[in-house]
């Protein structure tokens, strides 16, 4: 009895660890898990109140449809990588609203002219204070806000094409 238990315990531990790693790895490939990421505190909470030049929290709530909010900056190299994915997402009919983080308006405009502008609305957070209320740790960062103004999903870092497709599918459903 004792011996059988000694054999089963390490096997069970290995099995458990294996299942955990499998979940982490499958989450990483589908963009739902980032080992270095910080979970967002906003999930299933109302979007933080803000008023920026461009649009306000009230505008997001009044949109009447889900809004995908993307924090980006012209000085951010991963944002360049992400640009084609966002353009594809907006072509797929997803309402993308951009918030330029700590960026000079002229630089933002040049960035959008060069890499394509996927945003239906653009706000500017030059001091980067509104981003802190959202819990943004770095650009790019993407949030999904439902028509009731509740944040449903967040992705930190450049959106992988798979995650963008999953998001578009979710919004179509």
């Amino acid at each position, binding site marked *: 009895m004792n011996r059988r238990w000694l054999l089963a315990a390490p096997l069970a531990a290995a099995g458990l660890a294996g299942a955990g790693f499998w979940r982490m790895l499958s989450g990483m490939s589908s963009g739902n898990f980032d080992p*270095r990421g*910080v*979970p*967002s*505190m906003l999930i299933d909470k109302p979007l933080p109140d803000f008023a920026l030049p461009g649009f306000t929290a009230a505008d997001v709530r009044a949109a009447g449809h889900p809004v995908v909010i993307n924090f980006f900056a012209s000085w951010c190299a991963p944002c360049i990588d992400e640009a084609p994915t966002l353009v594809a997402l907006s072509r797929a009919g997803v309402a993308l609203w951009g918030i330029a983080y*700590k960026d000079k308006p002229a630089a933002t405009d040049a960035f959008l002219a060069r890499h394509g502008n996927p945003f239906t609305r653009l706000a500017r957070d030059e001091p*980067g*204070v509104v981003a*802190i*209320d*959202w*819990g943004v*740790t*770095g650009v790019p960062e993407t949030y999904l806000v439902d028509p009731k103004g509740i944040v449903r999903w967040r992705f930190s870092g450049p959106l992988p094409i798979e995650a963008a497709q999953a998001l578009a599918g979710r919004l179509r459903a």
Partner: protein
Amino acid sequence: MLMLLLAGPAWAISDPSEALPDPRQEARAVAIGQQLRCLVCQNESIEESGADLARDLRKIVRTQVAEGRSDADINGWLVARYGNFVRLRPPFNTGTLLLWASPVLAVLIGLGLAIGLRRRTVPPSPLNESERIRLQSLLER
């Protein structure tokens, strides 16, 4: 270039323009900031970090200290935005129970194994008559 890299962290903490004029308030702000993780560099506190976001958070901590808000209030404000991850010292709750208990658990498991393995080594039973005679003959050979 190397000098620049070495000097980097030093600027962040020693920029006098960031400090509050009241040294007691500044000391409080530093104490709070030293317990807050820089979200960009992850294993530095916001007081040590040269990152932009850390500087913004230092500024927010100082503004709130100057407004007279309590340490718990200021910590709560940051935790509401960034979660407990922002705290370098994780709170003790059901989610972190295993984390806090792990040193004790490791000692207990080690002790259990040590005692269990020691018990297993039963002293050999004494030789019976035929074995004793055989040993004797082997020794006398």
